[in-house]
């Protein structure tokens, strides 16, 4: 049995970056304030001193420019980790990500692969209001040619980056800023994890809670609460938002025959829509009840705590929704 250690989500992210930098000369981290400032959320604190400005590059405010440069560096044989401080600013780089990184391989007839890794802090939960609280996993999950990962656990915070850097194709990592200070136990020698499969984070037989990102710990908490009422909930962490691993959630539904999809992102045209549509197509006759969705309310996120909290599913909302589904 492996020894365990307690670690924050931030520390997990940081130790992955450090390990990546140590392991491979081609890896470097570039982004706004990753160096002298120590990272907007202190994820890369100390790394500039440890690795020097050639490996930890502060860049000017110019998301399109430096993300595109990361893509170019990847094309030319490096393994850049581009940090877009938060997903909110990623729209400025979206043309680079989609029209270049996602497209070049196919369009060049297989000649040009782009092994760039793009990390973005994302999500709600720090009262940063409408322009700083976005959850845009759905945008990126729509686009063929990129791999989209949601870092919903400490294990994945420690391991996903390392595997992403092995990918010959672009990978986007969504990291959840509201989880940075969260502590959890992971095995002491935790390292690279697979980036292909969803994971059953809790087994159960009454209903499949399908989620990702911050939805994972919230759903696990909700499942605990519900277990006290005798409801045995299975929690699935999608982990990979593109390409989706259907098998894991379809298997689960074949067992539970009921599903609720939970995410922070706006409801319309979301990951949840896609999951629901796939279950419709591939497991319709397995369903006892319609698949339901519990998503972010469709508003620009407001600043005050009570409204912010009301804008995305909370543990209590999940609990109530499941109760309503199972005991109508």
């Amino acid at each position, binding site marked *: 049995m492996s020894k365990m250690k307690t670690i924050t989500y931030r520390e997990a992210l940081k130790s992955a970056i450090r390990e990546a930098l140590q392991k491979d000369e081609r890896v470097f981290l570039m982004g*706004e*304030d990753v*160096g*002298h*400032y*120590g990272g*907007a*959320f*202190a994820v890369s*604190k100390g790394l500039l001193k440890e690795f020097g400005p050639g490996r930890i590059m*502060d*860049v*000017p*405010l*110019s*998301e*399109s*420019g430096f993300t595109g440069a990361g893509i170019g560096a990847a094309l030319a044989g490096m393994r850049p980790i581009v940090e877009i401080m938060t997903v*909110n*600013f990623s729209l*400025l780089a979206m043309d680079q990500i989609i029209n270049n990184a996602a497209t070049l391989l196919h369009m060049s007839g297989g000649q040009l692969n782009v092994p760039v890794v793009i990390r973005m802090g994302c999500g709600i939960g*720090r*009262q*940063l*209001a*409408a*322009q*700083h609280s976005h959850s845009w996993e759905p945008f990126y999950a729509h686009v063929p040619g990129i791999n989209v990962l949601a870092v919903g656990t400490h294990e994945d915070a420690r391991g996903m980056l390392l595997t992403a850097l092995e990918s010959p194709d672009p990978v986007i990592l969504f990291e959840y800023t509201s989880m940075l200070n969260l502590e959890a136990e992971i095995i002491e020698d935790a390292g690279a994890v697979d980036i292909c499969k969803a994971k059953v984070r809790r087994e159960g037989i009454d209903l499949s809670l399908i989620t990702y990102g911050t939805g994972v710990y919230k759903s696990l908490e909700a499942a605990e609460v519900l277990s006290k009422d005798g409801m045995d909930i299975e929690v699935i962490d999608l982990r990979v938002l593109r390409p989706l691993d259907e098998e894991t959630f379809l298997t689960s539904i074949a067992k539970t025959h009921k599903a609720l999809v939970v995410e922070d992102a706006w409801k319309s045209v979301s990951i949840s829509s896609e999951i629901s549509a796939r279950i419709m197509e591939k497991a319709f006759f397995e369903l006892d009840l319609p698949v339901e969705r519990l998503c972010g*309310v*469709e*508003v*620009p996120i*407001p*600043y*005050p*705590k*009570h*409204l912010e909290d*009301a*804008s995305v599913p909370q543990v209590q909302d999940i609990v109530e929704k499941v109760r309503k589904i199972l005991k109508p």
Partner: protein
Amino acid sequence: MKKTQSKSKFPVSKAEGKRLLHQMQLIRRFEEKSAEVYTETKIRGFLHLYVGEEAVAVGVMQALKEEDYILSTYREHGHALARGMDPGAIMAEMYGKVEGCAMGRGGSMHLFDKNIHFYGGNAIVGGHLPMAVGMALASKKQGKKNVTCCFFGEGAAAEGEFHESMNLAALWDAPVLFLCENNLYAMGTALEYTHSEQQLEKKGPTYGIETATVNGMDLLEVMKAAQKAVDYIRETGKPYFLVCYTYRFRAHSMFDAELYRDKAEVEEWKKQDPIPQFKKYLLKEQLITEKEIASLEEAVEKEVAAAVDFAENGTWEPIEDLCRFVYSENQEP
């Protein structure tokens, strides 16, 4: 091109001097109070203080008229106060109360007040520059004579939006004042890491835009430079680029450990603190007395306290209203 002679406001009158000092002092104390209240967790989210840069907001605002438009960044308490936004409404906004200037929905980074033509409070760096150009274009199309003043940091000038906006404004002869607050840092990234050419004022002329720099720590200098800029814009209808050299004395936001600069550097800049400087000037010119200063400061304390009171007594927006104003309620545009 004939230059009109702008009626000189300098040196300032006694009343004027007091008003200006009052404004700077109000901004300073209002923000210090905000920081305090922040540590009490009554304000949350990001809080970007303007302490040290007050002369810029106050100086520029003197040149602007009621009908002019103003756009600013997330570091905009100073601009809002200098523009005359109600301190209570700002504090209530930062508390997240309905009585706030944006119904509490925006918080510190998103102050809005359409009545005084204050268009934010924008938190995407550089994102408001194109809008500013468009507002100025609208004024031009409507035959209005007002100026659009757009505040932004030197960090923002590295964004593509700066380039596109400068070019568009110049091509369209849009009456925009591009007001760059060069405080030498963009978060923790020093000017030398954000711009290959650190003298940003060199960029204006390559868009054919009239350009000047000014010592942003000196209120009277800022007033003069801003007046000149605004006069030029009103006269020609053309854009103007004004770079104010300034410095923030405090951290970028409440989450900043300030690893990227020396305490000594900050202390050095504090010697140029615009408020004591201006006090000294007023005293020297006998435009104010020590006693008047004391009572002015007392008045400011009361204003700030009143703002906090107002915020404390504000109300929360009911959760049922969360979705109001995603779309307009009145379908008439």
